[in-house]
């Protein structure tokens, strides 16, 4: 009994540690005073200021545009790459997989710096395009790593059977392989999307001239000191993440129930 209580208490403490800073930010996003030391009445003015700030709206636009595009391109490239890698000989596979792991394992700062050198070297203006290229680059490996396990589980003979029955390779791919690997593809795409939204270090080195994503914007705001607009932004981001997770969770448990019913 005591042991059980201690366990729960420990969990409570860790969650307090994890959530206290976020909750403080949320509470103080409604604080009328700019200072964090004292409470000075409720207000929504930081939210209003946030949405009137053209800079931040532009930032959100770039963040989402880069995330959507980079995850889409990375998903296409990555899925194709996974299909190819899966059919490679052992030696080639090892070589390719090592290159694939490189951006995953390499510290972000090294990836960022190396890409910056590349862009400057070949004279690509640092901005939206360079940012997008960088994001696609670090996203592809994650898509590959999500799709490959699904391909391993796949029964290869099904595809050949489809071909024998007269399907074109593309038709066979669409009807036989794709349905089997689509969960991996979607996981990869989602992973790529979130990684892109959250990235700071690589973006920091590969963007320029008026293009910045949310992380870079927050970093520059935080360096300038405390800003209640950041609190408002945190609250909005936290709420949207919370909603997203609830939706995902419900869908997952519904799918699970469906699966169980079918069984």
């Amino acid at each position, binding site marked *: 009994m005591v042991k*059980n209580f201690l366990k729960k208490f*420990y*969990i409570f403490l*860790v*969650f307090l540690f*994890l959530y*206290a*800073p*976020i909750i*403080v*930010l949320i509470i103080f996003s409604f604080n009328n005073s700019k*200072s964090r*030391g*004292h409470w000075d009445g409720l207000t929504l003015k930081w939210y209003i200021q946030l949405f009137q700030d053209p800079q931040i709206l532009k930032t959100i636009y770039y963040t989402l545009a880069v995330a959507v595009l980079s995850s889409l391109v990375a998903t296409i*490239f*990555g899925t194709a*790459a996974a*299909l*190819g890698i*899966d*059919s*490679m000989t052992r030696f080639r596979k090892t070589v*390719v997989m090592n*290159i694939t792991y490189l*951006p995953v*394992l390499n*510290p*972000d*700062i*090294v990836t960022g*710096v*190396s*890409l910056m*050198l*590349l862009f400057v070297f070949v004279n690509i203006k640092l901005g939206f395009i360079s940012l997008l290229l960088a994001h*696609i*680059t670090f996203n*592809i490996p994650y898509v590959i790593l999500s799709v490959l396990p699904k391909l391993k589980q796949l029964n290869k003979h099904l*595809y*050949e059977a489809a071909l024998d029955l007269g399907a074109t390779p593309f038709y066979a791919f669409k009807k036989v392989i794709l349905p089997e690997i689509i969960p991996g593809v979607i996981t990869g795409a989602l*992973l790529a999307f*979130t990684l892109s939204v*959250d990235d*700071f*270090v690589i973006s920091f*080195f590969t963007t320029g001239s008026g293009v910045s994503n*949310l992380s870079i914007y*927050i*970093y520059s705001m*935080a*360096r300038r000191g405390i800003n209640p607009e*950041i609190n408002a*932004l*945190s609250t909005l*981001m*936290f709420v949207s*993440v919370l909603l*997203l*997770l609830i939706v995902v*969770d419900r869908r997952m448990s519904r799918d699970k129930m469906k699966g169980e019913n079918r069984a």
Partner: protein
Amino acid sequence: MKIKWVSYPYLVWMMIFVVVPLLLVIYFSLTITDGGVTKFSLANYEKFFEPIYIKVLLRSIYLALISTVFCLALGYPLAMILASKEMSRKNFLILLFVLPMWMNFLLRTYAWMTLLERKGLINTFLSYINLPPLEILYTNEAVVLGMIYNFLPFMVLPIYSVLRKIDPYVIEAAEDLGANSLTVFLKVIFPLSLPGVVSGITMVFMPAVSTFVISRLLGGGQFTLIGNLIEQQFLTVGDWNFGSALSIVMMILILFSMAAMARYEKDYEGGGLW
């Protein structure tokens, strides 16, 4: 299925955007520009071996190690509790646990800035209950705290997923054979969870040793870590050659420690990070 060709665009992409950039970093690290003339030289690496920069490297490793140890000490019991069979609503708790990770990590770091300030919330609270204020912001402790806060989930999740896979009958068998709970833990549970621990350590140590944001925001520009040094060389001082040499050193450090860790990991297929 003979469709190797579909991976060729990817291979070309990775050549251009991964291999070539790294070669560029190596090239820059091995050259110096003197009065417009570029020549090969090991001067950048020699410079790195000056005591002052070695100290920066050691400091980065030291802080990252401390954070890793704390994450392990805090995270292992947590993973055990979460994985224990009497814990109900596991999935919900895990979800709650990863939720803060979905927040932008700069926001999470920023949150600590507001808490730790001299006149921040923690000190306001302490003075309210008549305790002396704490001086935390812009110290080593603040940097370590920021690392623990940001990277704790990287430790807990792999350990948790390994612990959950341990066959409960193995533990029961050990108990039946007369082992007390400490022995069960030391001889059965802990050895079986080692792959999770190893990948947890790697996943905390790696980002901790290469960070420049946490030390910048919570260390007040006082605690130069190797990440800060690289950033400074590239964005403020403009010595890309030395910055490249530092990047190569960091890359070697990380890849070697990964390789060393991977030998222990064996067939563990990586924790569910997300």
